[in-house]
């Protein structure tokens, strides 16, 4: 079942078209990463599915139903910046969140503040918080009442390395519990580590989307090495099935069509041609490479 179905969303700001007919589905239980350079339309899209922006055309459904405020109450969200009443404490801000959404109660408020390590400062005004603390409170608000769906726009913004690691662990933990998480992020490494699915946007267009291993792997890359690298380069020129060969000082990378590389056959081929391999591995493209390739950056 799809938790979210986005169908041909279009949005313009004056002459600038921020979204140009974007469609995708988020399966239940997925950690769905939305990637894209600045201005690609990530936040615009999240704003539309949270009813902060009106789409010019297209539609979206939550839980297979047309979007409504009542459905939104079951979604924990953090959009762009932490938005709280500056004169209220963390506890009082979360009471407002609880009053509007119906998620959680006083006990749950204390629990989420402990989870994001703000419990000691729970009675301090929001205006006295550092950027990282504000972000932690926004995450606490999203987690309040343990919603099954989370929409997180740049959740690690402003956090220190420990905070980033904690959020990554938290997302992993929630994912294991079956929560669905939709997350926009600039941090490709972070997305690669935690996401099961990914969508890449570029200037308002959806470049690609799907399970992470499908998006990243569109060809097999086999990396091999031997004591005599020059001889190795000569030998593998004629290896059957290889589309492309890229050499470095230490290794040779052989590109095969997706799913066609057979490591045993390659090892055998080299051995038959007098080469003993010291290094043989099937590599996936890193998300960073794929992202740059798809967005031409």
């Amino acid at each position, binding site marked *: 079942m799809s938790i979210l179905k986005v169908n041909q969303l279009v949005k313009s700001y004056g002459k600038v078209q921020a979204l140009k007919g974007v469609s995708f589905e988020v399966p239940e239980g997925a950690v769905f990463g939305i990637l894209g350079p600045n201005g690609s339309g990530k936040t615009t899209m999240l704003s539309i599915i949270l009813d902060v922006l009106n789409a010019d055309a297209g539609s979206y459904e939550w839980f297979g139903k047309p979007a409504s405020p009542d459905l939104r*109450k079951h979604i924990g969200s953090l*959009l762009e910046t932490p*938005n709280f009443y500056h004169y209220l404490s963390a506890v009082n801000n979360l009471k407002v969140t609880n009053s509007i959404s119906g998620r959680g109660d006083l006990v749950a408020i204390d629990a989420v503040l402990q989870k994001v390590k703000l419990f000691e400062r729970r009675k301090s005004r929001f205006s006295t918080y550092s950027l990282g603390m504000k972000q932690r409170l926004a995450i606490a608000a999203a987690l309040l009442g343990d919603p099954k769906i989370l929409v997180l726009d740049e959740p690690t913004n402003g956090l220190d390395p420990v905070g980033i690691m904690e959020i990554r662990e938290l997302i992993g933990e929630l994912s294991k519990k079956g929560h669905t998480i939709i997350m926009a992020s600039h941090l490709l490494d972070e997305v690669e580590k935690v996401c099961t699915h990914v969508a890449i946007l570029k200037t308002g267009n959806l470049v690609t989307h799907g399970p992470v291993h499908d998006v990243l792997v569109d060809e097999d890359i086999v990396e091999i090495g031997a004591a005599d690298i020059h001889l190795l380069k000569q030998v593998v020129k004629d290896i059957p099935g290889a589309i492309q060969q890229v050499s470095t000082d230490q290794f040779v990378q052989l590109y095969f069509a997706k799913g066609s590389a057979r490591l045993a056959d390659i090892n055998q081929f080299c051995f038959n041609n007098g080469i003993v391999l010291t290094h043989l591995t099937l590599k996936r493209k890193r998300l960073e490479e794929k992202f740059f390739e798809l967005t031409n950056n």
Partner: protein
Amino acid sequence: MFHLLKTEWLKIKNYPGFWWIMAVTILSYPGINGIFYVTYKQQTANEKTAAKMIKMLIGNPFEFPEVFRTVAFSSSLFITIPAILVIMLITNEYTYKTNRQNIIDGWSRNEFIIAKFYNVVIVSLIVIALYILVTLGIGFSTTGSGVANRFELAHYVGYYSLQVFAQLSFAFLLGILIKRAFIALGTFIFYKIIVENIGAAFMIKYANDAGRFLPTESSDRLTPIPAFLGKLDADSYQKALSLLNQQAFITVGYIILFWGLVFWIYKKRDL
């Protein structure tokens, strides 16, 4: 309704700025009318001929039933103070972007505006209650036992209520449109005090008094000057009194228009 009120209460109950301006509002109405009353008493209390003449000419505008009109008029001059509260309550939401967060957390856009509508109603009710308390306080302390028709002008409570709600609704509309507290308040003061006053005065002379249809001038006409000042131009004063019910209908029309615009703008606008 209770749910919306509860949430709004959570937002303001620990907001020092709100309570400071509320205190100023609560103190200003008795204060301003009290100053007028004390000034009148000082000018008419002694036995000098001039004082006796003033008393004979203007009567006692602070006695029942005239006190209803006098306090309504003087209170209407200070609508800017509760307008600050109303503008602050909506522009703060824009400043902190909490208007977006309220929608993200599960309110519909209509619910957000209905919650704010209740805020404007409550601020209006507080101002109206102050008007009633000040009027009754001054009226009972100054009126002799011989006055029989004490509540003859009590319908000014209704006129004043309409005026307050219409003008605070206008302030709210400006807050929604402009989003910034100081600019919205500046626009409110500039438009109401400068633009409309000059426009209305111009239209009295050149446009058959069409100024009485302007957005805030229409409700300003619900609280005419006290009777003793009306003696300076008796014909115009009688005309103003005869148009009160018409002005009330125009004001109701504006209230509907203001809130209709507020709901429409908030529904259509990106947050």
